[in-house]
């Protein structure tokens, strides 16, 4: 089962932004969401999620606020700022382009290359 390494820079950040794009959530919620939507395939080292959250907060892409969790405990909720929302859109399209390009490259055969070269 291929798993992404713990700190492919940008990967976790992108996942966090995406997770928050629907509604504010606390760290565990985000972690849970990633787990569910990726069928636990993108299993980040859960701990590395937090420095990423702090970094994003420092950048001003997400904002944090203390609140009360669904089971009544004190938890820190994160939400996307408008800047974060813009960054998410930009990152998404960058990522898609990257993936498309990579797929093409990986699917390429010597033949297609030489044809193109002609």
């Amino acid at each position: 089962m291929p798993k992404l390494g713990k700190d492919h820079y940008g990967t976790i950040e992108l996942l966090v932004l995406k997770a928050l794009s629907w509604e504010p959530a606390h760290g565990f919620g985000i972690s849970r969401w990633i787990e569910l939507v990726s069928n636990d395939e993108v299993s980040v080292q859960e701990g590395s999620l937090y420095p990423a959250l702090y970094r994003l907060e420092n950048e001003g892409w997400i904002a944090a606020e203390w609140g009360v969790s669904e089971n009544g405990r004190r938890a820190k909720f994160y939400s996307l700022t408008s800047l974060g929302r813009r960054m998410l859109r930009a990152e998404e399209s960058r990522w898609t382009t990257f993936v498309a390009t990579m797929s093409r490259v990986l699917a390429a055969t010597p033949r297609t290359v030489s044809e193109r070269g002609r």
Partner: protein
Amino acid sequence: MTLGPQWLRERRFWRPRVERDVDDELAFHLAARADLYEQRGLDPQSARDAARARFGDVDDVRDRCITLSNERERRMKRLELWMSARQHARYAVRRLLAAPGFSAAVVLMLALGIGATTTVFGVVDGILLRPLPFREPDRLVSLAHTIQVSGISKIDLSDATVLLYQRHATHAFESIAAYRTADANVGVAGADAMMAERVSTAAVTSSLFSVLRVTPMRGRVFGPDDDRPDAPGVALIGAALWKRKFGGDPGIVGKRIIVDGVNREVVGVMPDGFAYPASSTSAWVPLGFDPAKTNVGSFNFKGVARLRAGFTADAGARELAQVLPRLFDEFASEIPRKMFDQAHVTPVVQPLRDAIVGDVGRLLWILLGAVALLLAIACANVASLFLVRAEGAQRDIAIRMALGAGRSAVVTQYLAEALVLAAAGGAGGVLLALLGVRALRLAPAGADLPRLAEVGIDTRVIWFALGVTAMSALAVSLLPVLRSRRVAPGVVLKESSRSATVGRDRQRARSALVVAQVALALVLVAGSTLMARSFSELRDVKPGFDPRGVLTVRVALPRATYTTDVLRMGVFDRVIERAGALPGVTSAAITDWIPLTDDHNDGVITMEDHPLPPDAVPPDHPITYASPGYFKTLGIPLVTGRTFERADAARPSLEAIVSRSFAERYWKGESAIGKRIRSDLSGPWSTVVGVAADVHMESLEKPAEQLVYFPLVTPNKDGPSVPAGVAITLRTSGDPASLAPAMRAIIHEIDPTLPTFDEQPMSARVAGAAARTRFVLLMLGAASAIALAMGMVGLYGVLAYGVTLRRREIGVRMALGATVRDVTRMIARRGIALAALGIAAGLLGALAATRFMQGLLYGVSPTDPIALVGTCALLFVVAVIASWLPARRAATLDPMEALRND
């Protein structure tokens, strides 16, 4: 209001307990994950373990989160501080713009004070404080000797002593160098000889470059081989000369130039900014000492050395003193050893910076003191204005405080206003300082400040200005701030403006400030009065010659071309003949020493009828060589006797003329004419044929020298005896400066390769001789004029405001029958009383401060009664004027208006 002050609430908001929050957040995550595992059937302990395992390194994550969080904290705090500073500044600016007169006055006064202080600090820093622009400058020293001989006390080094020290004084010294400066004609070999240019050069030992630790920009510096007397001719040139004269030719190294007629190979180019020993030095040639042919007793070389790390100048001097007795063992000498011993030649080692800076230190510190006083006056004045302003705002503040504003808010308001004004004043001050330093650089060269080229407004000076600005801001806001603590809202609000005694207390503080201002101004004015007295004394000094209508032009014959006395004398004869024939010229002459320049020349003089005891040290006297027309040209009267005969290069005429003070010293009560003297221990005697009036040769401040004149041609046992570098002097009935082109043409006609230089009317040289005194006078004068004006404004302000406060009282008095005269007197008396207090305090201060001016004064004592009384009188007059204006205003009040209008 239980939440506490605003800033605390903000703090709580911005500054959560970082660690605790991180811990809480991570704990929440672990607990939630453990719950999940428990739901799937794990026991609580394994659930917790599994959650931790899934999480990874908790401590590492925690540390990283705390670091990131703290970073954010700091940024937020900075931002918050910046925002609140901007807020306060914006409010302050808005309030100040509403009072443009007040703001402009404050900014102007602070700008003057800060500008003056910064300018002078820039100069002090560049000249006195900053290390010399060489590597490890603390280890650089100058070498010289003291000597006990009549006439001189300090001498430099002779070639033999330089070689001796270089050989043996290696314990304390890393390297020892010597040099001698000279102006030389420099031209490109093979090019048009007329392109020769007069530049200042230095003949140096090769060690100079290792002493100063400089490396060339191109090529190499001199090496030990270049020190040999028979080494091929080489030269180094400075970057500026390289660019100017050789167009920055990249292939300059290896090319040949002519320095004073000697063909030399350029071996290197020194970097920009390197100019030693003088800031004008732009070419270097080797000294080429010959150890076999030294001249032990001719101390003509300046010494500079680098100490080894850890050695002091004193240790260096001790080592030189130990080495010096070997001089006569190792070098041949033309003077007897016993004579040398009797002269008590003692080595002196001094930090190089002290040697370069010389006696300017005192002058600059005094100037810095003066501008500091000026700044203090400006601050006192501004503080006084702030008090008035605080008074006006008192009701506002009382109301704000009654409504719950904290005292800190009020203090912040004053500080913000003061800071905004001081910042504007500081900016203006730095601008003024930039102009001031530029003006100083252009100032009469006669002020003669060493290292002036290194003076500038740089970051260090800007920091100083910032510091001064901040201190001023604190100083001027101190009083209102202190007083705001005393504001009791109840009292202020009750104390309506109908009260006659309003602000009495504040008036007292302002009065104290005025007294201080007057006192400080008096100290400054006393200083400049003393300088003015010195200057006028100095102007009254008769130089001993008549400078009007005299032109001086220098010319130097290269010894390489003009090898014999006859050749040189031939040129001089032709110059005198043709110059004398110019229209308007009444006489022309040649001399080697123009009075009031540093052409200085002195030597041993022995007198036939004053035989020396065996091996005694003969006296030393200044010596001038001059052509027969010299006395007529310069207007130096001959007291008795006649001038020289026409000189003949082939046959020295063996004549001498002495100055009056020389004659009085040795032949008091008898005639000097017919006595015989010589400028040597042996050789032919010269007969005194005349006695000339005394002339100040070195400076106006020093007494006229006991001087000896010899003709241009003198007997000399070796080497040429006709000087090569001379000055042509002309007396004309018209404007001397207009003769310069004609003079140049004559020289050009005789030899087109000879440049003339330093063309100046004699009157300019006399003016230059008092330049330093005039410089100090100008600086102190400007400072005291400003101080006086500020003091006057201060006194006027406090009285005028007093009148405003006492309007009702005055109105009542007038209604009760007081006359205009009574009221005027009442107000004026108060101003004069304040001024008198200030004058008394200032007089004490002046007596204490002017002592430091001792070295700068000429002909007056630092406690000169005339100057001090004059100063007090001047201040008093100013005080009377400043008091009279508000008094008049008070007296012209309409009593009805005053009583009604509240």
